[in-house]
Each structure stands twice: as structure tokens, then as C-alpha cells.
């Protein structure tokens, strides 16, 4: 087929284009291709060259959108794509299609066994909290290491930080009930999650696109995990209610066996579902951001005057500060997800302006909180909790300032949207660095209190 290499390439491109239409299945594309080739060879027989024959054949096939619309009318079910547990006819030979499912289930059970073993052998409650992430991480990262077939250097790059974290969390002489131990446990989760990101990116963590994919993955995972949890809760409630009527107490079994296996297992399964359904349904997280961005703006605009007039800044309750941190993180998530779902080439629109308003409101809240924190530290002295919160707020402040600055540039047409996007993805490791500092440096600095 050497003389027709150009034609073959054109047909290949055409196939790729047709396949993007959801209503047209792979078998339909085969059928249409057979038709196209028949038409082309008939045109060639009348003396047209490859290029002309291809163009005529394409023209006669008709407007692809209209044809796709007809297909959609006939096969409306295809617009509701089905989740295929075991992909049929996958081209990469060697790996049987059911293997991934088997690996996922094995890893999910493994995560459950690890958590159950942790519960059985670690008697100290604080130590258990510190180790929770460490018990589940290998299985989640292991799934992506398997899926992406990571290289040995990447695997080493995952195992070494994991080992360092595990050693730190277990060998540091944390005081019982101390705040540095709790801070280390919380911040270790952030570091572990970014390590999952490295595994997710298959080691290509420097790539902005991979980072953005990981952001999308995180959002979808949260949603899938929540859905699985809701479904599980319904099942558990029904089982417990049924058993109670015949006088059996379900609670010990639930606490001892079901939850330790179900929760980590659901996390692994949710990760796999996000991977498996990538092409199956629209992402949900970006849809939610559209709904919640205006609502969050309203919430911030209500909270801001309340906070500002709530008496002396030093008097602001510690719990309130923690809550506000949570709100700021929520704002950043909203920002990240709307950015991750936005077409980078679309011109600035109303929603982009709305986002800027959101960022500005969040900045005002953050500034207020920083003032409150500094006042508290000046008045009552510093503590590990306060310094950790202060650091987090500074990190958030820089993130929001950068986002606001670039968003203004984008809205005024001075900057492409990719600049906004790149700022978000490039800034992510800063959180990892800060979290690692809290885990590794805070305990010795504050005497493991």
C-alpha cells in the first residue's frame, strides 16, 4: 500500500475524528470506513487521484454532525455511556482484560487487611492516627504504579519519601496528646497525597498537564468515594435494621470488620472507577464548581462583615480560625476545578469575572485571619498549632494573590489563560514542601510537645 500512504493517513485521521462522536460506536466507524473505501475506489476507477477521491467520498458521506445526530436518534442509549468493567478487545496484547480488575480488587482487600492489622497491633490511639495514611498509601500508589508501569527510578522516588515519612511518624518521641504529633499526622496526609500524584502521573510530575489531570482526579475521586460511602451506608443501615428486629447486635461486626475493610477498599475502588470511567461520563467536579462558585461568594460576603465586626481580633475563637482555613481551602478547590474544566482557548467571560470576585473575597478573609492570628500570637505567644496555621495561611495568601493577579491580566486580555492554569499547577508542590516541613521540622523545633 506504499503508493497510497497519504490516503491511508487521511483515512486514519478521519477515523479519529469520527470516533470522537459519542453516538457512533467503533463498529459503526468500521462500517462507515468500509463505505468510504468503496466510494474512494469507485472514484479512483473513474480517474480521480487519491486526494480527489477522498474528498468526494467524504462529501458524499454527508455532514458528520448531521449523520451523528441520526445515529444518536437511533442509539440514544449510547449517549448514556455504559461503564465497561472489563474492556473488550483491548489492543494492547499480553495483558488479559480482567487482570486490571483482579489487581484492583486484590489491592482493595490488601488495603483493608493493612488497616485491620494496624487496628489490631497498634494500641496507642495517637500512633494509629499517625499511621492511618501510611497503611493505605502503598495500595493506592501501587495501583497507579501498576497502571502506569512506572520505571524503577520513579518507584524508588516513591518508596524513599514514604520510608522517611514512616520512620519520622513512628520514631520521633511524640508526647501523648501533643499537638505536634497531630499536626504531623495531618500534614503527612498531604505529603502522601502528593506522592500519590507522582504515581498517578507515572513519574512525569513535572508536566503541568499531568498535574492538572491529578487535580481532576482528586475531585472526581472525592465524589466517587462519597457516592460509594452513601451507598454503603444505606446497605449497612438496612442490614443493621433487619438484624436488630431479630435481636442480633450488628455494631461489633461493623466496627471490627466491615468499616476497616470497606473504607480503605472503597478508596482504592473509587480511584479505579475514576480511571475506568474517564471517557464514560462528564466530570462532575467542574459542574459542581459552576453551581457553588456564586454560592460561595455569597457566603464569604456574609461572613466577612460578621468577622470584621466580631469584636477584638484577638478574641476570635480558635475553632473559628480553623473553620475559616477550611473555607479558604474550599475556595481554592473551587478555583482549581473550574480552571481544570475550562477550555484554555475560550475568551474571558462572566464566569471568569465571577471567579475573580471569589478570589478577592477569599483574599479579604485571609488578610483578616492573618491579622487575627498575628494578634493572637503577639498576645498569647506562639504554639505549634498557631505557627502551622499561620504558615498555611501565608501559603494560601500567596496562592490567592498570584491567582488574582493573573486572573486580572487574563480578563484584561493581557495574558493567555494558560498562564492562570500554569500558576495553579506550579504552585501545588509548595503545599507539599510546607507539609513536609511541618512533619519533619516542627516536632524537634517544639520539643515533640
Amino acid at each position, binding site marked *: 500500500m506504499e503508493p497510497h500512504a497519504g490516503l491511508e493517513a487521511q483515512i486514519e485521521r478521519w477515523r479519529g475524528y469520527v470516533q470522537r462522536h459519542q453516538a457512533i460506536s467503533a463498529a459503526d466507524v468500521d462500517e462507515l470506513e*468500509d*463505505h468510504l473505501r*468503496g466510494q474512494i475506489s*469507485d472514484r479512483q476507477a473513474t480517474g480521480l487521484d487519491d486526494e480527489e477521491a477522498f474528498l468526494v467520498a467524504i462529501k458524499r*458521506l454527508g*455532514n*458528520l454532525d448531521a*449523520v451523528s445526530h*441520526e445515529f444518536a436518534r*437511533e442509539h440514544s442509549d449510547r449517549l448514556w455511556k455504559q461503564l465497561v468493567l472489563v474492556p473488550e478487545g483491548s489492543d494492547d496484547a499480553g495483558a488479559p482484560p480482567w487482570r486490571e480488575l483482579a489487581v484492583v480488587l486484590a489491592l482493595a482487600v490488601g488495603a483493608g487487611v493493612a488497616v485491620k492489622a494496624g487496628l489490631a497491633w497498634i494500641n496507642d490511639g495517637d500512633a494509629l492516627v499517625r499511621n492511618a495514611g501510611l497503611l493505605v498509601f502503598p495500595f493506592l500508589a501501587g495501583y497507579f504504579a501498576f497502571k502506569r508501569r512506572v520505571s524503577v527510578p520513579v518507584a524508588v522516588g516513591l518508596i524513599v519519601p514514604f520510608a522517611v515519612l514512616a520512620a519520622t511518624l513512628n520514631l520521633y518521641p511524640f508526647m501523648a496528646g501533643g499537638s505536634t504529633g497531630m499536626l504531623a499526622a495531618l500534614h503527612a496526609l498531604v505529603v502522601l497525597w502528593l506522592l500519590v500524584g507522582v504515581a498517578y502521573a507515572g513519574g512525569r510530575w513535572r508536566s503541568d498537564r499531568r498535574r492538572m489531570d491529578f487535580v481532576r482526579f482528586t475531585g472526581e475521586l472525592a465524589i466517587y468515594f462519597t457516592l460509594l460511602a452513601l451507598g454503603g451506608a444505606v446497605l449497612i443501615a438496612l442490614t443493621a435494621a433487619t438484624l436488630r428486629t431479630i435481636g442480633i447486635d450488628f455494631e461489633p461486626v461493623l466496627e471490627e470488620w466491615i468499616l476497616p475493610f470497606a473504607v480503605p477498599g472503597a478508596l482504592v475502588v473509587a480511584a479505579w472507577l475514576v480511571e475506568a470511567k474517564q471517557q464514560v461520563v462528564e466530570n462532575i467536579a467542574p459542574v459542581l464548581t459552576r453551581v457553588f462558585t456564586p454560592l460561595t461568594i455569597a457566603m464569604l460576603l456574609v461572613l466577612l462583615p460578621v468577622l470584621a465586626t466580631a469584636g477584638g481580633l484577638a478574641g476570635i475563637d480558635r475553632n473559628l480560625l480553623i473553620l475559616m482555613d477550611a473555607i479558604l481551602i474550599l475556595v481554592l478547590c473551587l478555583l482549581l476545578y473550574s480552571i481544570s474544566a475550562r477550555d484554555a482557548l475560550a475568551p474571558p467571560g462572566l464566569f471568569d469575572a465571577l471567579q475573580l470576585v471569589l478570589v478577592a473575597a477569599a483574599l479579604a478573609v485571609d488578610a483578616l485571619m492573618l491579622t487575627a492570628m498575628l494578634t493572637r500570637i503577639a498576645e498569647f505567644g506562639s504554639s505549634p498549632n498557631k505557627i502551622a496555621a499561620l504558615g498555611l495561611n501565608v501559603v494560601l495568601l500567596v496562592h490567592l494573590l498570584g491567582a488574582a493577579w493573573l486572573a486580572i491580566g487574563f480578563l484584561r486580555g493581557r495574558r493567555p489563560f494558560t498562564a492562570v492554569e500554569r500558576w495553579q499547577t506550579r504552585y501545588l508542590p509548595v503545599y507539599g514542601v510546607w507539609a513536609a516541613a511541618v512533619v519533619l521540622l516542627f516536632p524537634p523545633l517544639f520539643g515533640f510537645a
Partner: protein
Amino acid sequence: MRIDKDLVAASATPLVLGILTEGELYGYAILKRVGELSGGGMQWTDGMLYPLLHRLERLGYVSSSWGTSDAGRKRKHYAITPAGREALAERQEQWTVVADALRQVWQSAPRFPDAIQGLA
């Protein structure tokens, strides 16, 4: 002479079923046969044939099977089923009635160009 789009659409089903009574065929061959039968007057958008064939298959009027073409590529063949033959017979009756009615109307009223000639 080009045939009106609506008329093409209305006649598509009986035409395809009728062609398939001649024997099993694949999509492109069906379309070529339509062209031959109408002297090129009935122009379809090629791509629209397939959703139609799939609809006929869902209704049980045709059955399909994958084979290979002379060039060794995958090719989907369609064959008419007994249910399809019944449907075709019914359509034929309907079309006969329509054609009959039209013929009577045109016989009683002279064709338009003739009328113009009559005036001249």
C-alpha cells in the same frame, strides 16, 4: 431530475427492503443499487443509510453479519428477515394505493406543461 428530499426519505425503507430481497448486501452496494435503479435521481447522503439500516435491524426487518471484503477488510452484510418481507409487502400495498390515487388524479387533470401548451 433530482427527487425531493421528503420523497426520498419516505421511500427509503421500502426501497432498501426491496433491494435486500434480491440478496444479502453491504451498505455501499445497497447505495449503488439505489443509484442504478433511479438512474442517479435519488441522491442520499451516504452516511444516513447506516442509521436507517440499524433502525431496520432493531425492528427485526433485517439481520446483519460481519464478513470480510475482497480486500480483506471488515464488512457488514445485511439480509432481509421474514418479518422484513412482511413489512415490505405491507409497504408495497400502501405505495400501490398512493401511486394509484396519484395516477387517477393526473389522468383527470392534464399535466401542467400540457395545459400551458393548450393555452398557446
